[in-house]
């Protein structure tokens, strides 16, 4: 904390520091349950997977740079393309947004000292890491997932894909899903129960609304995927017949189950980006978000309606017209809440005094790409249009504008925006702006021509194409764009890495931000806040009197909770003071449990059912040991 007014306050802060001190060294990182450290672990791990997914994308684009290219054969191309998709969705975007941004920021924004279940939070991270290693083990052994990220059967069934490639995919994603489910439950309980007294739901930052919506979407979206993956593995490994038409199964059932998960997944990917946008825009326009309640509702509505549109991925599968029309209508309706948010962002920018620093530039890029990707999305709701262009590069163009341009740009902007908070140093602004323009140009250059080659009929997921089709120049442009984009991303990493050591030191609140993470020092202390902050609006940092009151509370010892590893819990709607929770500190059990779970999945893959069962028993033993330690107060 920047200012400690009195000797009593100083004594209290010292005591907090003693109680909350994290274990140093490697062991500290392996056993940590601190949400900020877990957030940082998530950040570096997901960035490593981003790099891997990026290399795969570059290989794919290099293969397609000219007709009849022989850099990657069809076999390698399929693995690169599939692993690129799986990595970017499951190992990069979701972990970086929910795991890194969510973990680091949500407790800070709601004025809490940790997540509701800190040890489960650590478990989520270690499970995620293990699942990523699991999937990549397949790739390094030459058996990477190879039937596309949506792995349609019968292509993904044993008969047509006899190697272990799809087993790495299916088991790896079930493994990954456990991690995401645990994280989602943790976020909901944290947001519902650990908000600082006074932060009623209508005073909660929009960022947290986005994370609440995402977490609920994850809880309901992942089970259908897990059922589909379970069926697939039973078919492939034990000879069941869920998707086998010859024995009464149904191949389309895979598509239904997959897309019941898969479309909400699109919103799971993009909602955190909305949350980041609604944090950055008010800060750099010096005004509150326009239509706060509407934007909050829209964030939740998008997640909700996202569950009712999955068949628009299946317009070309021969379903009945009435089904198609229903889902086309539902797909059009989802435009409404998305539009509300878009207009709210634009109006806030328009009526504020925007200062185009790097984070806001990325948000502007996001708005442009979201508009373009959204518009091509609306076009797909028109059934004949979809049937004409399905499985062409037009689809690839659409969803990359949405999930790269719209979902990843705010993540990149967010990296810049919260960099001073996490490191206590400022990045280099000029280099930051240059990196934006490189990334923006690269993205447009890579993905815009795909619309045209799609309209010209180039199918997606092909490893090469003949010359003379009129596709070659566009493909060359796209591949050049991919390298421009990569150079922009590289510049971001370089800027942040160098600035982490050489950047100018900054105080708690270099931007004049609106939310509570800016109330504490940069980087925040282990206990987050010396005193649980007072909250009377959704823009807590702009309520100067409340922050002055915090300093007085510290002197009085009011809501400092320095006697133990404690944080307050409040009621769900009104955030009235409810009880004091004793939070667990570091624990060896989460990482041990994740290792045992990795054993289960590894031996399931190898087909040693008994050994997998032994590891399952080991998981139970670890859980029993985990729960021997009870909070002291109890």
């Amino acid at each position: 904390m920047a200012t400690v007014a009195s000797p009593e306050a100083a004594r209290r802060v010292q005591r907090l520091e003693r109680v909350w001190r994290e274990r140093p060294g490697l062991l500290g990182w392996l056993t940590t349950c601190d949400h900020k450290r877990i957030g940082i672990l998530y950040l570096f791990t997901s960035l490593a997977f981003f790099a891997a997914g990026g290399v795969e994308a570059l290989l794919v684009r290099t293969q397609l740079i000219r007709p009849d290219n022989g850099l990657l054969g069809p076999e390698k191309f399929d693995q690169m393309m599939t692993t690129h998709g799986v990595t970017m969705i499951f190992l990069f975007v979701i972990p970086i947004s929910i795991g890194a941004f969510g973990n680091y920021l949500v407790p800070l924004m709601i004025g809490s000292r940790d997540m509701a279940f800190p040890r489960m939070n650590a478990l989520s991270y270690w499970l995620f890491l293990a699942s990523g290693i699991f999937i990549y083990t397949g790739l390094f052994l030459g058996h990477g997932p190879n039937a596309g990220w949506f792995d349609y059967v019968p292509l993904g069934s044993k008969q047509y894909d006899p190697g272990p490639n799809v087993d790495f995919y299916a088991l790896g994603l079930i493994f990954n899903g456990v991690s995401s489910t645990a994280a989602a439950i943790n976020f909901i309980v944290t947001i519902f129960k650990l908000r600082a007294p006074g932060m009623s739901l209508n005073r909660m930052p929009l960022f947290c609304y986005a994370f609440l919506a995402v977490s609920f979407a994850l809880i309901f979206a992942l089970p259908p995927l897990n059922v589909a993956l379970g069926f697939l593995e039973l078919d492939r490994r034990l000879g069941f017949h869920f998707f086998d038409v010859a024995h009464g199964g149904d191949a389309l059932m895979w598509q239904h189950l997959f897309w019941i998960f898969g479309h909400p997944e699109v919103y799971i990917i993009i909602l955190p980006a909305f949350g980041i946008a609604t944090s950055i825009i008010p800060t750099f326009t010096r005004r509150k978000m326009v239509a706060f309640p509407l934007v909050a509702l829209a964030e939740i509505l998008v997640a909700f309606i996202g569950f009712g549109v999955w068949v628009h991925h299946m317009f070309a599968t021969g379903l009945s017209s009435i089904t198609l029309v229903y889902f086309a209508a539902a797909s059009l309706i989802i435009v409404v809440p998305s539009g509300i948010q878009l207009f709210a962002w634009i109006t806030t920018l328009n009526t504020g005094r925007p200062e185009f620093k790097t984070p806001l530039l990325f948000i502007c890029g996001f708005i442009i790409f979201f508009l373009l990707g959204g518009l091509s999305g609306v076009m797909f709701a028109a059934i004949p249009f979809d049937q004409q262009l399905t499985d062409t590069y037009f689809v690839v163009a659409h969803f990359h504008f949405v999930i790269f341009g719209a979902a990843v740009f705010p993540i990149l902007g967010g990296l810049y925006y919260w960099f001073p908070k996490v490191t206590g140093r400022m990045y280099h602004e000029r280099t930051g702006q240059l990196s934006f323009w490189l990334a923006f140009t690269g993205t447009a250059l890579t993905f815009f021509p795909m619309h045209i080659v799609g309209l010209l009929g180039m199918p997606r997921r092909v490893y090469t194409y003949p010359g003379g089709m009129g596709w070659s120049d566009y493909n060359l442009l796209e591949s050049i764009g991919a390298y421009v984009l990569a150079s922009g991303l590289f510049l971001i990493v370089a800027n942040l890495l160098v600035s982490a050591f050489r950047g100018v030191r900054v105080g708690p609140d270099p931007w004049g931000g609106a939310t509570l993470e800016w109330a504490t020092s940069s980087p925040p202390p282990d206990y987050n806040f010396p005193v649980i902050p007072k909250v009377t609006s959704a823009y807590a940092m702009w309520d100067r009197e409340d922050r002055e009151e915090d300093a007085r509370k510290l002197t009085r010892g009011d809501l400092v909770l320095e006697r133990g590893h404690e944080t307050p819990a409040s009621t769900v709607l009104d955030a009235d003071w409810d009880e004091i929770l004793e939070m667990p500190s570091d624990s060896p059990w989460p990482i041990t449990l994740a290792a045992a779970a990795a054993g289960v999945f590894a031996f399931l893959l190898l087909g040693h059912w008994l050994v997998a069962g032994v590891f399952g028993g080991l998981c139970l033993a670890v859980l029993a040991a985990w729960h021997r330690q009870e909070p002291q107060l109890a």
Partner: protein
Amino acid sequence: MTDTTRTAAASRRSLPNGVWGIALFIATEATLFGSLIASYFYLRFKHAGWPLGGIEPPKPALPLAITGALVLAIVPMFLASAAARRGSVGATARFVIAALVVQAGYLVVQIVLFADDLSKFKPTTNAYGSVYFTLLGVDHFHVLIGILLSLWLLSRLATGLTNYRVVATRVISWYWYFASTVAVAVTLTQLSSSL
């Protein structure tokens, strides 16, 4: 139970975090069962005749009776939860054991029925066999997990009641409310071809 924990439990106005956690876990698990049951009916309505391949429909009497018993075991679990909140460790343990006897009995009979079904047809016979055994297997697995949770709870209750264990009793009761209710849905799905 110490006075401080009694006050904590009494003055708390919203559900404890643990109960929120299990409620959300139930939400995701219910969706899992929803997907499984939906898959069963999706496959069922793809075919004119069901069960496929001349497999005999299951006999309803015994599965219905034992599922009824499993649902009734909710009552002692509810009472256990209430007793824990009153601070009575003996009553809590007795109610958990009473429920456990029924739940374990249910699982034993279900395993016998499962083995009996397996002697008639296999999951590899056709899609009906696949979805039938998978649905039942997943359901029985959930009952098994519940039994392990109850056993764990009893081992903790053996050394007295703490605030943490009061919440644990509540959480495990909620798990049983779910596992018992979902067993009804699964059983009705299983028996839909003979009802």
